[in-house]
């Protein structure tokens, strides 16, 4: 009994002691602005969450090393939420109540959506890597921002690109494969409708689980329908399974994946089967010839990073631009940053993503998507496809 109590006390002390230095540190800096960052550093989405979080971290360090943002030092308060809604919510509450952050960088859909109302009430601009179209509609999510075209716009832009490339007389055949989960289902209705408008023939519709280790059944069914193009709406591991099984079964189709559906890891997972596929991305890949890449290569000392890193970096860059604009007008707080962000017009984040604009009634950052072709074990830039900013597509 006594040893048990002692152990408990020791454990409690061990847990509490390390928090002391952080309390001291935060009091030392003056003229600082705090930004919260709730990231998926562990849990199911950590393979993409970690590079994204590193991008944000490096951008903050780079901004601070170059004079800060409008004379302010940015302090990043990072918490791992493990893609768990309760932990993400607790992190957000801590940012607001204890750290007094002016803005938050978030990551996963489930958490971002659970915090939409809180961010609006607390007037905290909430950047995220969840590109669901409905988060770009200020009518329902007034304080939510992201820097990539939403999932539906990405899919529409890719369809437009493939239709423009299509030379044969018959209508191109199109199949959709996606996981039966919110993330996979979100753009499907928009994609199907736009495909019909463009003159695609939608021939197939298969669900492939995010954790799939075999997709032969779905591909055999696709084989009969012989689609020219096949959308993969999953994540990199399930996309790799699809591509490998397609090669095994002998399905000849051009795969195109959404933003989380393939990254640099696809070549490790799928090998030569990935060859010829397209990856939809919103940010440059490492080493691409854009002005911002020099900065990133300098910050990372030439160590290659995934495209998610570049997106995290840009997300922070855009937020910094908002803070700069807000500071030029006077007070820097959540509301002024939001209003400043809504005056951004074709802001170019050093070429790392397509130019970004936000409007008070439209938070879609851009209507453009980068298409990369998987060639020789690399993502090779193929095209930038832009769509008109159609009001009817907002939030859908």
């Amino acid at each position, binding site marked *: 009994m006594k040893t048990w109590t002692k152990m408990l006390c020791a454990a409690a002390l061990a847990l509490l002691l390390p928090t002391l230095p952080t309390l001291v540190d935060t009091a030392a800096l003056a003229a600082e602005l705090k930004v919260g960052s709730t990231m998926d550093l562990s849990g199911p989405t950590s393979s993409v969450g970690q590079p994204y979080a590193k991008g944000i971290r490096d951008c903050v360090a780079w901004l601070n090393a170059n004079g800060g943002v409008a004379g302010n030092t940015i302090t990043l308060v990072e918490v791992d939420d493990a893609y768990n809604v309760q932990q993400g919510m607790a992190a957000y509450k801590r940012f607001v109540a204890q750290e007094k952050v002016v803005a938050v960088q978030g990551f996963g859909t489930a958490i971002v959506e*659970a915090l939409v109302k809180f961010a609006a009430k607390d007037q905290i601009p909430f950047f995220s890597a969840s590109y669901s179209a409905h988060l770009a509609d200020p009518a329902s999510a007034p304080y939510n921002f992201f820097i990539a075209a939403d999932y539906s716009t990405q899919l529409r832009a890719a369809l437009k690109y493939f239709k423009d490339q299509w030379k044969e007389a018959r209508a191109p055949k199109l199949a959709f494969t996606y996981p039966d989960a919110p993330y996979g289902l979100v753009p499907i209705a928009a994609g199907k409708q736009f495909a019909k408008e463009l003159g695609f023939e939608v021939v197939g519709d298969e669900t492939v689980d995010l954790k799939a280790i075999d997709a032969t059944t779905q591909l055999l069914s696709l084989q009969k329908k012989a689609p020219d193009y096949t959308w993969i709406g999953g994540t990199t591991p399930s996309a790799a399974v699809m591509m490998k099984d397609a090669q095994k079964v002998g399905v000849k189709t051009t795969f195109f994946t959404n933003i989380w559906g393939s990254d640099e890891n696809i070549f490790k997972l799928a090998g030569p089967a990935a060859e010829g596929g397209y990856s939809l991305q919103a940010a440059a890949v490492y080493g691409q010839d854009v002005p911002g890449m020099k900065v990133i290569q300098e910050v990372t000392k030439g160590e290659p990073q995934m495209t998610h890193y570049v997106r995290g970096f840009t997300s922070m860059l855009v937020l910094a631009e908002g803070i700069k604009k807000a500071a030029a007008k006077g007070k820097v707080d959540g509301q002024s940053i939001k209003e400043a962000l809504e005056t951004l017009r074709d802001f170019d984040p050093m070429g790392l993503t397509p130019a970004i604009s936000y409007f008070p009634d439209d938070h879609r950052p851009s209507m453009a998507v980068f298409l990369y072709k998987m060639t020789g074990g690399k993502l090779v830039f193929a095209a930038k496809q832009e769509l008109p900013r159609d009001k009817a597509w907002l939030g859908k």
Partner: protein
Amino acid sequence: MRGKCGLFFSSYRAEAGLFPSAFQKTCLGLFLAALCACPLVLDTYHVSILNVILIAVIGAAGLNLLTGVCGQISLGHGAFVGVGAYASALATLSGWPFVLSLLAGGLAAAATGMVFGLPSLRLKGIYLAIATLAAQLILEYLFLHATALTGGSNGLALDAPQILGFSFNTDTRIFYLILAVAVAVVLGVANIIRTRPGRAFVAIRDHHLSAEIAGVNLFAGKLSAFGVSAFLAGVAGCLWAHYTMFINPEQFGITLSISYLAMIVIGGLGSVIGAIMGAVFITLLPELLNLASGGLAGLFPDMSASLNALREGVFGLTLILFLIFEPEGLAHRWRLIKAYWKLYPFAH
């Protein structure tokens, strides 16, 4: 059961009382007063954690009644929470007052729970676990695909609850609402266990054949356990939905069911206070680990990535150690601590 020294009863009714001694009543009163005073001294971060804990307490108390008291394992509790959340959200969105929405959420979950509890007459133990797992999967599918009702993958947004024009739109305000419901639920569950149906639940758990011989209707007993348990899950879901003001299918996955099971196992199966302790423990552990890894990352900045990986491991390890060294849960440890101090310093 041993009574306390100097505590005598002159009637069975008094002996069966929830709080037999004045000391217990005073302690409980002080504890509740302290809880009520919490928002005055704590900031919104801590209050928000209290809110999440209290919602977990309601759900765990419900599952404890079914699994701990009646012995029917359920892996579908998370989905029942979801049914309550969606039903109450729909009720609120169509203009019902909050109190009615709360009841609607609870009743919808209770009805769903009873339907999926039907196989419990034929299935026991691990087989029932699989049947309730099926309930979880079916309900998750409905949340995602019954788009007209649930908003599908886009989820449902709603407003802060209002009672008689008073809006519970801050953490502090809704804390009192959740606290009131949680106290009512905990007292309710403690009382159910003392009643005839409650004793029937225990009889069913301990030996179903003897229970039936003693005149307990097995089917009615099990089904009502499922109903009451799911009702409380629905109430928890309603409060969660109105607290976060946004629900989507991902919030009510199998992990929620498992974490409720973890709460009642860690806390102590069949004990009301155990369910409370388990809910507190499981909700607080990730926060404490986050705090510790955050602090350690401040001391050793290069290690932050491995610390996060370690955190998950520590969470798992803590659960395993608890199961090995505290197989009867936190409630049992609590009883031992009380016994120790009762005899202090003459422990024997």
